[in-house]
């Protein structure tokens, strides 16, 4: 099939009434939660995951993905207006977005980020459409050893991005991996860590893990807190008209940001948007002839990272859909949603379910158009969302957690589990455990173990299989280089300021 044929399949799927509605719901919900500080997109996707189990698989994924990139758009609004990032990946936008607001240029900042988001997404979507089929074809010949090495690189990369203590980071990943292997062992049929409960034979549901670590933790952290922030700036349609100069100044930053974001998003374990945004910001600052402007409302300081985090949000789907290897926690959730629908993510997805893959790809384009069109007239509404009192928000989220978890298998057992795990998660996070690499570990854990043991079963115990297969060897070398680079890097004294 040619690209045109594929896109036709995609258009037919994405433009059905049902999928359009799900897309619209997804991006709108994404915008709302993106704007609301305190509910990150991981929390939002965790909360809405069970809902998608009741939709047809394509529609469900269209909605989930919509929430994700919708939240990327929305996240920057809170950053710009109140200097509080709505999502982690828009933290960089605060640096120059909030100064612009104080200079009375909130409207310009909002519209420039909207345009940057749109362009960044579109470029990454084109990449997804062009790159996925050949990658999937190549991946059909991958063996268990290759998958093991690729996922090992992903975990190592995720581990190196951990900001706090490396020990606690490693422990977070290990706990995630262990949570992932609860249940029936694929290779032997043994029940592990199930304590005789049949409800655990198939493992702990991803919904329970996600709700515990991102839902319950969030609620316990934020419930009953008074939110105090000033929301003074008014946003009118007129103030949103960007000047010719603003557009000219952001043109190249947007393109460069899109390139950086697309590339970072594909890497396994690169952590998606936030890493891409930080890198794009650093690139712009280095290339700029006026680096002193950065931090004081430089327009390139919002356009490049915003393009980058949206591009990364889209290109992250490439390894997830073609290889079945999630790059970050959100892709892990998307992978979980596919599994629940009985679709094993991997190279066969494009061939088996072309309408799913191409429909999803085209729905990304549709969704981004909807966001662009929706955002300009509705910007005022989004800004007003920042005023919702938390008193109403958090009991509602708690109810959503309970019902959502219950709905997965219609058993109260899972609700007890989320209560217990949620409490433990809250304590662990307070002591510095990182929930995002933990969730990635949870999804990758059983896959890594399964592929590792299977590779050795096939080689009859010969570890050389991981080096003899060229693809596996390449990824193992990359992992080792990454570890060496991190160890060397941490030895040289850093001049940069410490994170607070």
């Amino acid at each position, binding site marked *: 099939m040619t690209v045109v044929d594929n896109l036709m399949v995609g258009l037919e799927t994405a433009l059905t009434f049902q999928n359009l509605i799900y897309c619209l719901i997804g991006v709108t919900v994404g915008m709302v939660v993106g704007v609301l500080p305190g509910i990150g997109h991981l929390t939002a996707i965790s909360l809405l995951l069970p809902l998608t189990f009741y939709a047809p698989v394509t529609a469900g994924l269209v909605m989930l993905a919509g929430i994700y990139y919708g939240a990327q758009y929305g996240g920057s609004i809170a950053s710009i207006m109140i200097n509080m990032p709505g999502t982690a990946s828009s933290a960089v936008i605060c640096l120059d977005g909030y100064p612009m607001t104080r200079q009375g240029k909130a409207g310009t900042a909002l519209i420039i980020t909207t345009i940057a988001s749109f362009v960044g997404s579109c470029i990454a979507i084109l990449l997804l459409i062009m790159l996925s089929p050949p990658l999937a074809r190549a991946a059909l010949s991958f063996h268990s050893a290759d998958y093991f090495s690729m996922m090992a690189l992903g975990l190592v990369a995720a581990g190196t991005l951990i900001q706090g203590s490396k020990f606690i980071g490693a422990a977070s990943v290990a706990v995630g991996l262990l949570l992932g292997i609860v249940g029936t062992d694929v290779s032997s049929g043994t*029940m592990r860590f199930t304590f005789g409960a049949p409800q655990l034979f198939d493992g702990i549901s991803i919904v329970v893990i996600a709700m515990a670590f991102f839902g319950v933790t969030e609620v316990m952290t934020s419930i009953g807190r008074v939110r105090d922030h000033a929301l003074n700036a008014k946003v009118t349609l007129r103030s949103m008209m960007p000047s010719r100069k603003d557009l000219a100044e952001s043109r190249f930053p947007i393109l460069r940001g899109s390139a950086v974001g697309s590339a970072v998003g594909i890497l396994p374990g690169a952590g998606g948007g936030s890493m891409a945004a930080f890198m794009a910001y650093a690139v712009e600052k280095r290339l700029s002839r006026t680096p002193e402007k950065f931090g004081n409302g430089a327009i390139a300081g919002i356009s490049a990272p915003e393009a980058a985090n949206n591009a990364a949000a889209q290109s992250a789907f490439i390894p997830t859909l073609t290889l079945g290897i999630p790059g970050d926690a959100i892709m892990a959730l998307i992978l979980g949603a596919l599994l629940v629908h009985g679709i094993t993510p991997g190279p066969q997805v494009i061939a088996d379910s072309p309408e799913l893959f191409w429909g999803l790809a085209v729905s990304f384009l549709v969704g981004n158009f909807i966001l662009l069109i929706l955002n300009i007239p509705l910007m005022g509404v989004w800004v007003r969302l920042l005023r919702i009192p938390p008193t109403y928000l958090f009991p509602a989220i708690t109810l959503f957690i309970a019902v959502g978890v219950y709905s997965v298998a219609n058993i109260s057992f899972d609700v007890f589990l989320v209560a217990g795990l949620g409490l433990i998660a809250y304590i662990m996070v307070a002591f510095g455990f990182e929930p995002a690499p933990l969730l990635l570990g949870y999804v990758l854990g059983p896959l890594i173990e399964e592929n590792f043991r299977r590779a050795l*079963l096939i080689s009859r115990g010969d570890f050389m299989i991981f080096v003899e297969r060229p693809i596996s060897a390449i990824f193992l070398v990359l992992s080792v280089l990454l570890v060496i680079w991190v160890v060397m890097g941490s030895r040289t004294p850093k001049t940069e300021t410490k994170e607070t």
Partner: protein
Amino acid sequence: MKRLLAAAIAAIVASGAAAQDDYPNRAITILVPFAPGGVVDLASRTIGEGLSRRLGQEVIVENRAGGSGFIAATAAAQADPDGYTLFMGEAGTLTINPSLFEDTPYDAEADFTTVSTITDTPLILVANKNADFKTFEEFLAAARAEPGRITYSSAGIGTLNHLAPEWMAMEGDLDIQHIPYKGGRPAATAVASGEVDISVVSYSSTKPFIDSGDVVVLATTSAERIDPSPDTPTMQEGGVPNIDTSQWTGLMAPAGTPDSILDMLNSTIAEILAEPEVAKTLTEAGAAPYPSSRADFDAMLDRLRGQFATIIETAGISAQ
């Protein structure tokens, strides 16, 4: 036994209240041991929709996935035997689990009674295109020449794709090595990529690889040749006796459900499965409509339970 007695009493009490005459007078629930998606879920929804249309009562399809089917099967086994709770079973929950697990929380034989089989998905033996055998006979010769060399993929321990090759190995006196995967698709992809040599898979899930020439079809595990691939010989034709298995689904009711209800459901299901629309929906998912009498279904369960018990014991398979 106590439960059976209680069930029988309950059934008599219920029939005394003339429950059978106006059955169904409220919603019927079909418990499904798998998550939405997949053939078992599809069979349940298709039949549920048909029953609801013909009986004029709502039919709720309730997915209670997990625990190797334990959760749904146990709930169904303990439900009142009044025809309002039914259970969509398949090879695993009804015929394999009793031998695979030391202890199951339900008794697949005593807790259930048959209503009707619903669908049948034929299984085929395929080999990677680069394997040094192209026919079933050549495969048998190769496997006997070098015991333990040939590897096969399965969808997991104790799945039909695991037990069918073990059955073949037992009857054909072969030594082949099991490589488990998680699910049918990865197992099929593994043969296509050449990571393993052979696999017993459903025809529908392997069709893309057959069409692309990545795998070659050697034989079918059914007793007779199958519709989608009439040129493929059966294993019995190829000289391995007794092999007769496929992936089927069948509707069950808690033991003690009145026969009049079961017979009425059986004949209604036969009518539903004869509808062209229903046949089309099922066939598109690779499953043929498979109506049967209750006696035939009972006989099949008996035969398969005995068969799988022997295979599991011979091959030394266990889940702890």
